[in-house]
């Protein structure tokens, strides 16, 4: 298995004095499905955004696909970013554009000059976008405005946009936090199946412990900017959970096996 991503002693101080990451080190291999769990403010979002330099780090090294992230600038940075797909809690679509246009945004990193600016995509790209929407069960919404979709549908467009980039790594920032339980299951299933099929490594920030345990091949636990757990879901004992969330297990809303039985067929 090839190494895709490597964090070495990464730290981040924000200008307002917040010490978001302290000496974080971990690695992600090709095809892994890694969940990052931890309470709000533990640095989960900072980790994801430092990988594609949406947030610059203060100290340490991040190596992505053999390149040092902090050294990339301008054109090189754009090239690096297009290798990394990103999915957001609030979907972050351009709501006044059509679904197809939003999916094709995934190709912008590959386009230069006026073609990219005015969105003159190649027929090949358009075909691929439509195929992807087919795969996600969204083909009938190609020409709907993104604002007309439901939450689960918007997130599927977000997934399609990220996959359009042909990424090696997918970053998901609380992808199901704004969704109802049944849409959430669809989205998690899609993320797992699509990344597995394409051998894309996937890092997901999650608040739902049960989801993390069910889907991940590995879990990273963060607490106050430090990695306190890094291992397979089976090893996530009550002790560890208490250390991550800094409170006893009874005080946590963890969710039960009940979620698994939900039917995903009628989801929105």
């Amino acid at each position: 298995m090839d190494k895709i991503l490597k964090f070495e002693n990464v730290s981040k101080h924000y200008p307002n004095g917040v010490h978001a990451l302290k000496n974080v080190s971990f690695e992600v291999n090709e095809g892994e499905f890694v969940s990052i769990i931890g309470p709000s403010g533990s640095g989960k979002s900072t980790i994801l955004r430092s990988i594609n330099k949406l947030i610059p780090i203060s100290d340490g090294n991040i190596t992505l696909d053999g390149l040092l992230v902090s050294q990339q600038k301008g054109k090189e940075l754009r090239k690096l970013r297009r290798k990394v797909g990103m999915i957001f809690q609030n979907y972050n679509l351009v709501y006044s554009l059509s679904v197809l246009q939003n999916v094709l945004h995934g190709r912008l990193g590959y386009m230069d000059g006026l073609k990219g600016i005015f969105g003159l995509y190649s027929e090949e790209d358009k075909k691929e976008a439509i195929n992807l929407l087919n795969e996600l069960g969204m083909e009938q919404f190609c020409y709907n405005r993104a604002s007309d979709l439901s939450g689960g549908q918007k997130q599927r467009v977000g997934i399609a946009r990220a996959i359009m980039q042909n990424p090696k790594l997918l970053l998901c920032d609380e992808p199901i936090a704004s969704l109802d339980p049944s849409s959430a299951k669809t989205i998690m299933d899609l993320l797992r199946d699509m990344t597995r099929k394409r051998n894309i490594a996937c890092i997901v920030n999650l608040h739902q412990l049960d989801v993390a345990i069910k889907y991940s091949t590995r879990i990273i636990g963060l607490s106050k900017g430090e990695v306190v757990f890094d291992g397979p879901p089976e090893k996530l004992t009550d002790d560890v959970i208490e250390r991550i969330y800094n409170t006893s297990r009874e005080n946590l809303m963890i969710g039960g096996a009940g979620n698994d039985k939900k039917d995903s067929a009628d989801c929105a």
Partner: protein
Amino acid sequence: MTKRIPLIAREQKRMYTIFIAVALVLFIATSFYTNFNIMTLAQNSDAFWAFITKDFFPPALPKASRIPGVLSSVVVTLALAMSSTTIAAVLAFFVSLFASEKISPFPKLAKYVRGFATFLRNIPALVWAFILFSSLGIGTGVGFVALLITSFAFMVRAFVETIEDVSQDCVESLQAVGAGFWQRVWQAILPSCLNGFLSWFLYCIEVNIRASTIVGMVGGGGVGLTLFSYIKGFQYDIAFSIILLIAAMVIVVDRITGKLRKEILK
């Protein structure tokens, strides 16, 4: 007698008392300073009424040969407002991209761009008109520039707020796919902010219709100049019908732009 129960907090009551006292003192001080006396106004009210009823009423039409000229001056005023606002909007769009820390490729300069726009905005269009007339001479061209400057500065501010309100999330996601600055502008900021921009643009047209009448009076041409020349010629009854014409024009434009803005923001 028992103590009465107050209905509002004592501090609040004291605040109101202080506020009213200060307002009263200010009124007395300022009217003393400006020699304003309500009694003089009352004494002169006869002359004022006579002016309104005899000189202004009834509104009279200008000579038939002048009517096409008056109407075309209305068109000039409308055109002045529309064209200056349009050019200002295009310029303001490009400048506003550099005036927002969150999206500008040079975030450190954003503050200065905004400061410059604020400076331009705080000088009223009328003052700009006077400055430009003294240096460049009178004419619609100069009126155009005076309106352009103020509405440009206003729209920069309004556009920056629209951009920061609307497009934060989608700009981030396009950054993440590796899109360059102009790609982000054309593929995310413009489509998501276009309605907001148009709404501000229409509002600016409303403002500029009124402003272009005023700027016209001091030399910018259009219906303002026509009105001013009738007033100077003591033909108040004709001036009155032109004032009515201006009011009608402003109301019609307000209603049209108001309706369009409502449609756009739906």
